[in-house]
């Protein structure tokens, strides 16, 4: 009890230091608790939602016209999977929608009718309109929970699908629980009426769209892999199944959705590690100083009969109490933050989080913090044993110096404050190790955050630059239209810088890889503007391909290697000539020449014009001028109202609408019509329909990346502020500890005529060597971690911004100097006689 009282007394006299340690341990406990309580939440939410929906864990969809019953049988014969649900679904890739607020959104959609949904899952409805209201709906749609949780839709809202310029308005009947197809990468399963389903079977055909045979089954615990399955399918059909095959599984959706959450969580763990390390080092530093400062007091206590173990415990209790307060505050914070975390995780994964608060984990994290502090405090406080009473009375050997005189003043040059600071630094270099570790750890994280914040400062522009994909507006032409002549016409339009004729991108299989590649094709890569060559060279010949660092990481494919790319019934060997990195398709891209692409897909025809707009020209402005030039495009015609104007105008509008539908959906290339009304002949043809659809890479990127960019930007700035506060606290503790430890010396120097500012400068300059070296080490560490992070998280190469890092280094060093200088300011408040006679 006496020992505890002694600890409380010490605590009272070290209020500021105690507050700093409370801050560090609070931050540590908070971040650790949030990490431990939430790391498994999202994962559990997945399995819970699959269980609640009665969903299988895997699905493959194959275009119906390509599907064979043997494909289903293969699952049983080759992989032992017997419980297979077979049904139909319409796949609509990157389908544009207009929501209730008139905003454009793009969702890859998988449409099923209610009968199919009940075969696939239990069709568990959540929030919905009343049965009477649903009855009255002409076009009801049931959406997966993502739309309610993440997108904020409500029952009764309208959601209008737009295809080929035609609008298909739906009213949201409600939301239902689903396992598969509740993910931005793999699409959303939407339940629509039988009539709408039949219509969509017609509307969505061609390209990546169309009705598919869908097989739902549980693959976990079996030998099933997509790669093996496709190989088997292809071996029995002789066709390139991958070209018309879609897959989804709980594993894929988790990888896609949890990537960002896990990244955030591991960052929290990393940061809590840094603050924990700082707190422990500071506590050890403080205990060492306390023991040295209170040596005579230790001698007195020992002489009075206190055992050294008891005296050690008085130091340990002091810091355990301090860390305990910090841990309690951190744990309380974690409990407060928990509902926010649940909301955040739900929004990110679009699934309800069923575990509300992991109270046990939160409490455990607090205990871990206290336990670590206790262990390290015990280790350091054991030093008391070294000092029996007589030695303690003599203040140990603290003031004894026998070593070499480093930087003798008679040979010194320049400022005396710098010289004395350096002398002091070299004389106490061991104490700098702890400071160095703290600055390296916090500095690495700060520099990482600086680069991340800079990368995201202009929203998604940074991410766009790492896509290795040109920022273009793709104009898709109707069948039969000569792309080269239209390309020339568009190139002449105001606001257009240049145009290139392209092929529709495809996902192509690569032999011995489970990762299909998304194709990028150029006649000449000198025309490409946003493809960053990392190593080697761009492909120039028809047997050359450029791949990515992600493929190198996952498949081991390097420059000079050969890969076999599978098309529709073809297998073609390519030599890898270069390496880039891309944020798209998990970094799995294939860059080929036009001739190379034709070897893989001999039946493909170019039907895309990639339009490069001039600076300052918006997508809307371009669309407007494009509509002016090709005024009666399929899109415009299908949207045109036929209720206004004269009878002849209304008839022409109605005819144009029909022509647009036929040309865009059925590949009809030329139609003539003639209508006779009251003896008047109204004629027309489809030759003025040229453009099928427009898509802007920038718009798509904005929709999918804006959230990540915003969270990353503000998260980085927030982390930077917290970490800077940690550095400030550490340096403040070191500075105040130095003042306290060197009161006598500082008093003597004040007596000699050194001003408080001189002495503050000396204390600040003393930490500069360790700060500068630590910041340099931190820069290299940040470069390595930043690069590893981008490769792991996005399959791309992240480079530290060198000039910015150097600037940040300088600011960090200056920050450390200023914080230490200010923290040493307590010298000012102490009179020279008071300091000297302490």
């Amino acid at each position, binding site marked *: 009890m006496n020992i505890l009282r002694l600890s409380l007394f010490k605590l009272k006299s070290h209020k500021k230091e105690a507050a700093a340690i409370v801050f560090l341990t609070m931050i540590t406990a908070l971040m650790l608790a949030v990490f431990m309580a939430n790391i498994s939440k999202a994962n559990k939410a997945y399995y819970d939602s699959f269980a609640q929906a009665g969903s299988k864990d895997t699905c493959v969809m194959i275009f119906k016209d390509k599907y064979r019953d043997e494909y289903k049988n293969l699952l049983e014969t080759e992989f032992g999977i017997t419980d297979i649900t077979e049904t139909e679904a319409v796949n609509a890739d990157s389908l544009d929608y207009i929501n209730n607020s008139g905003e454009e959104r793009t969702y890859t959609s998988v449409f099923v009718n209610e009968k199919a949904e009940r075969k696939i899952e239990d069709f568990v409805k959540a929030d919905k309109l009343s049965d009477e209201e649903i009855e009255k709906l002409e076009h009801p749609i049931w959406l997966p929970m993502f739309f309610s949780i993440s997108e904020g839709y409500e029952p009764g809202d309208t959601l209008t699908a737009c295809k080929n310029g035609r609008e298909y308005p739906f009213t949201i009947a409600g939301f239902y629980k689903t396992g598969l197809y509740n993910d931005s990468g793999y699409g959303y399963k939407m339940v629509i009426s039988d009539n709408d389903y039949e219509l969509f079977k017609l509307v969505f055909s061609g390209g990546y769209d169309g009705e598919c045979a869908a097989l739902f089954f549980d693959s976990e615990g079996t030998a099933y892999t997509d790669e093996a399955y496709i190989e088997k399918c292809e071996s029995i059909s002789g066709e390139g199944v991958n070209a018309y095959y879609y897959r989804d599984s709980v594993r894929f959706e988790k990888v896609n959705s949890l990537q960002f959450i896990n990244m955030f969580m591991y960052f929290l763990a990393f940061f809590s590690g840094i603050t924990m390390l700082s707190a422990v080092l500071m506590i050890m530093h403080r205990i060492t100083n306390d023991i040295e400062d209170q040596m005579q007091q230790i001698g007195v206590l020992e002489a009075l009969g206190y055992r050294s173990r008891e005296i050690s415990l008085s130091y340990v209790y002091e810091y355990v109490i301090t860390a305990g307060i910090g841990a309690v505050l951190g744990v309380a914070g974690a409990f407060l933050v928990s509902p926010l975390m649940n909301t955040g995780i739900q929004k990110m994964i679009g699934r309800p989080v069923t575990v509300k608060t992991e109270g046990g984990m939160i409490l455990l994290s607090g205990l871990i913090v206290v336990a670590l502090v206790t262990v390290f405090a015990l280790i350091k406080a054991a030093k008391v044993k070294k000092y029996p009473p007589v030695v303690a009375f003599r203040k140990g050997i603290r003031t004894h110096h026998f070593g070499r*005189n480093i930087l003798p003043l008679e040979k010194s040059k320049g400022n005396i404050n710098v010289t*004395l600071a350096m002398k002091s630094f070299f004389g106490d270099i061991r104490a700098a190790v702890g400071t160095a570790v703290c600055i390296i750890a916090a500095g690495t994280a700060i520099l990482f955050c600086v680069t991340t914040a800079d990368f995201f400062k202009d929203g998604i522009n940074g991410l766009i630059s790492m896509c290795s994909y040109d920022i273009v507006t793709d104009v898709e032409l109707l069948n039969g239209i000569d792309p080269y002549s239209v390309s020339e016409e568009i190139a002449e339009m105001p606001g257009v810088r240049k145009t290139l004729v392209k092929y529709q991108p495809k996902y192509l299989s690569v032999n011995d890889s489970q990762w299909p590649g998304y194709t990028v094709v150029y006649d000449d890569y000198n025309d490409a503007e946003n493809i960053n060559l990392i190593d080697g060279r761009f492909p120039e010949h028809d047997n050359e391909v450029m791949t990515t660092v992600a493929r190198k990481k996952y498949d081991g494919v390097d420059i000079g290697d050969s890969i076999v790319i599978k098309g529709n019934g073809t297998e073609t060997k390519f030599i890898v000539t270069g390496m880039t990195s891309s944020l798209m398709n998990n970094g799995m891209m294939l860059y080929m020449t036009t001739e190379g692409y034709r070897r893989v897909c001999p039946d493909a025809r170019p039907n895309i014009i990639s339009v490069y707009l001039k600076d300052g020209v918006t997508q809307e402005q371009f669309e407007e001028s494009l509509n002016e030039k090709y005024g009666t495009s399929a899109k415009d015609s299908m949207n045109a109202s036929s209720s206004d104007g004269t009878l002849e105008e209304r008839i022409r509008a109605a005819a144009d609408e029909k022509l647009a539908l036929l040309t865009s959906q059925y590949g009809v290339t030329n139609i003539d019509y003639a209508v006779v009304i009251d003896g008047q002949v109204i004629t027309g043809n489809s030759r003025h329909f040229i453009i099928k659809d427009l898509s802007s890479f920038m718009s798509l990127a904005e929709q999918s990346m804006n959230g990540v960019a915003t969270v990353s930007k503000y998260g980085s700035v927030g982390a930077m502020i917290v970490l800077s506060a940690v550095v400030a606290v550490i340096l403040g503790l070191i500075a105040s500890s130095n003042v306290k430890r060197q009161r006598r010396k500082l008093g003597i120097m004040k007596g*000699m005529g050194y001003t408080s500012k001189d002495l503050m400068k000396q204390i600040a300059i003393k930490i500069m060597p360790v700060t500068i070296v630590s910041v340099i080490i931190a820069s290299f560490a940040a470069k390595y971690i930043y690069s590893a992070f981008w490769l792991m998280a996005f399959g791309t190469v992240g480079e530290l911004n060198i000039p910015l890092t150097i600037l940040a280094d300088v600011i960090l060093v200056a920050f450390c100097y200023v914080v230490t200088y200010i923290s040493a300011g307590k010298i000012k408040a102490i009179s020279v006689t008071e300091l000297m006679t302490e």
Partner: protein
Amino acid sequence: MASSVLRTEKLCKSFSNGGTQQHVIKNLNLDITEGDLTVIMGSSGSGKSTLLYALSGMDKPTLGKVYFGDTQIHDYSNDQLAQFRRGNCGFVFQSVYLLDDQTVLDNVLTGALIVQKNTPKLVNKAKELLKKVGLHEEDWKKYPNQLSGGEAQRVGIVRAIINDPKILFADEPTGALNSASSRDVLDIFTEIHKNGQSIVMVTHDLKTALRGTRVLYLRDGGVVGDYRMPPYGDDDGQERRAGLTAFLEKMGW
């Protein structure tokens, strides 16, 4: 007539102690003459050291004025006082207060380099002064813990005079020394004083006081006696001793 080097007007210094004010120096008017070795004596708690620190700009007075020549120093900030001290004052303390982590020579130079540039002349001066007080080359690289009390105090004296201060302040410089060391140290002070150095020294030792030219006696924060010592004669200091003893007896010492 020698001019005044240090002067106080109604100097007061008080300390707050548990909520009550303790007035240590009370309305003290004092003149310190250039070239004097002024000795301040008094019983314990009479305010000797407090006066010394207030005179030297080590501490700020609570009230009153301190003039160093024509310069008012009583309203200086702490940093201004430090800058003032470095050019004008030297200090020798009972506890010596050497910097433990610096060698003998570095202790001297630390005091010098805040005022002067590092030149061979300065270093030679430091070495010459050390030699003069009996510390030779083999001692210069020693650390304070390797020195005897007398040796340490001699280093303290060299450190105090290296910048040629206008006044040298000494607070019981022999208080912690044995008699032989005390004598050596006092001889050094006498030697320095003979060279024209103004010295203000606090002591309660008669032998030390005998080295002075003027003795002030403090009681309850005020100067109650001011004795001008007779010059050295041929009587081996008998007259000085007798005069000082009589003065101190009169003061109730």
